[in-house]
């Protein structure tokens, strides 16, 4: 789901052309509202992975639950749409074409397609360097360009 305030910030901000796919509408750390289970809120830093995992479980968060949308039907009903789609238009407008068609079939089609789910565990090593705020990033990514941009904007560097 889209947080409109952030969207607005992004649209007007300098960074609009650089950041976030497909649209700059997400935050690294939730600010006052979460939009999905599993959204990052913060990060525990510890001397070992075990201690960090234990620390994460100890953080207490109070929520006020808000209505959530779980199905496409609900989303349509509540007009919760992404506003960054593109149209491909060729020939007659759909309505006119259908009106002229000899046969019109109607029904519902469902697709199981979804964004790639990364099965493997993810890890990144970030090593701050003494020279001019330089940082070295070892990242298991298929998107080195964005990893590089993150460094440029210092988002990773802030909590190293």
């Amino acid at each position: 789901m889209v947080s409109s305030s952030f969207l607005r910030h992004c649209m007007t901000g300098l960074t609009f052309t650089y950041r976030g796919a497909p649209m700059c509408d997400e935050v690294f750390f939730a600010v006052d509202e979460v939009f999905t289970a599993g959204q990052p809120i913060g990060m525990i830093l510890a001397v070992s992975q075990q201690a960090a995992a234990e620390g994460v479980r100890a953080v207490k968060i109070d929520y006020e639950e808000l209505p959530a949308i779980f199905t496409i039907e609900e989303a349509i009903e509540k007009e919760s749409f992404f506003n960054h789609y593109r149209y491909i238009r060729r020939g007659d407008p759909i309505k006119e074409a259908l009106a002229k068609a000899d046969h019109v079939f109607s029904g519902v089609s469902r697709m199981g397609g979804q964004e790639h789910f990364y099965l493997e565990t993810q890890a990144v090593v970030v090593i701050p360097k003494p020279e001019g705020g330089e940082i070295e990033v070892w990242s298991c990514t298929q998107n080195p360009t964005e990893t590089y941009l993150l460094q440029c904007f210092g988002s990773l560097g802030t909590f190293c």
Partner: protein
Amino acid sequence: MHILIIEQSLYALVRNNPEPTEHDVEEAFDGNLCRCTGYRPILNAAQTFSTSSGSPKKACGPSDGGCCMQNADGELPVGCCKNKSKNEEPPITKKFTPPGFIEYNPETELIFPPALQKHKFKALALGNKRKKWLRPMTLEQLLQIKAALPSAKVIGGSSETQIEIKFKAMQYSVSVFVGDIPELRGFSLEDEYLSIGGNITLTDLEGVAKQAIVKHGPSKSQPFKAILKQLEYFAGRQIRNVGTPAGNLATASPISDLNPVFLATNSVIIAKSLEGDTEIPMNKFFKGYRTTALPGNSVIAEIRVPVAKETGEYIRTYKQSKRKDDDIAIVTAALRVSLDDEGLVECVNLAYGGMAPTTVQAKNAMEYLVGKAWGDEEVLEGAMNALESDFNLSYGVPGGMAVYRKSLAFGFFYRFWHETVTELKGTASEADDLVPEIKRDISFGKRDHDTAQAYKQRVLGQTKEHVSAMKQVTGEAQYTDDIPKSTNELIGCLVLSTKAHAKILSVDSSPALEVPGVVAYVDHNDLPSPEVNWW
């Protein structure tokens, strides 16, 4: 999974059995999932060690790609895995020059270190205030520990407990490893039953079941065949090497593949404590979700699985999971029926896993079936109706998939019915083609070098190796986790929302900061400006 772990599986296979069959080779990788190189080249390489497809194989260098067994003149020898298909692959041009591989000879293996072979196991106690480990070496020691510390967590293979620790954050301050107690790992083949030690590994249990099948012949050994069949698809080899029957029972996993067999065969559990032995029949053992009738001061010492009748008794098992190998069941069942001379049901057990918070029996269907004529169409109809009342899963049932799980439970009974009726009457039924287990053949695959030929350009249409492929398959590649720790390095772990949509009212990180080893909590407030939080 890391290629090195796959190589370890292969090494363990060849070390234990220098002449594995193709099936042995494939089974050795049951528990290995691979994401980086693909199974085909791994299995092709591993199959060069198998013997079933022909003469002893030579491990040699794939100097020009293609098959590792290729002769200098490019002829594939008889028995090569690639000879299965007549469409031989054209040689691949590779820049990689392999080192001169040495023929594998089991004789040259390092011997098992004699010092370790002579090692005398002794009882151990180690740990600190937070976490203690005990390892008794005799049953007596274990019972004393259980009497003194009834809450101590008994650990066999830990395949279930580790999941609890990792995903449910369970804390066990005292753990007792029982896998080295010889008295709990034995077995004996009796005339009326098979006795197995609670902590026999599932791999060893496979061997024991095979012995019991030989001893008791085809009819009476049906319970052991059922055990063997369930073990075939019970996790992977690595898990079967450590998992135990007592672990299945004590953790009362509702989708254990083994517990339905114990339940359907009316097995008996012998629990021991310092006060003496208790016999617990299987149908009294499971009390509720993850709870059992095992007293706190007792351990599961022995399980007695009775043999079947010589005639008129039928036992079958079924399992459906998302993937055939190495997967947890959605529904699993062990079904048993015993008929009198007239073909009427004397007693019946329909034990299911995955249908309730514990392994359960379909009591209504069992009650209905007693005294009815097995093979009568009306009885089948009636049994199905009774099953419907046994398994009336609601849509909100834990684990979900209510309709699918019901269909599986009914489907298993339907298969059991037709399988046994066919055997009983010696006639074919309309469901014959639905009954047999679908088994996967030995995997095979080939690379397609032709399709892209027509589009071949300087770069496009060429077969290109992944840039780090050689490093990955030789185990040379370094992963993030392999990077040595830097000074002052900290590990970050994300705190994630547990709600689908919610306002965050407050975040209190102070309890986390009291956990030993935790250094800091960061969130959006720690960023230099709100802008860098945008993504």
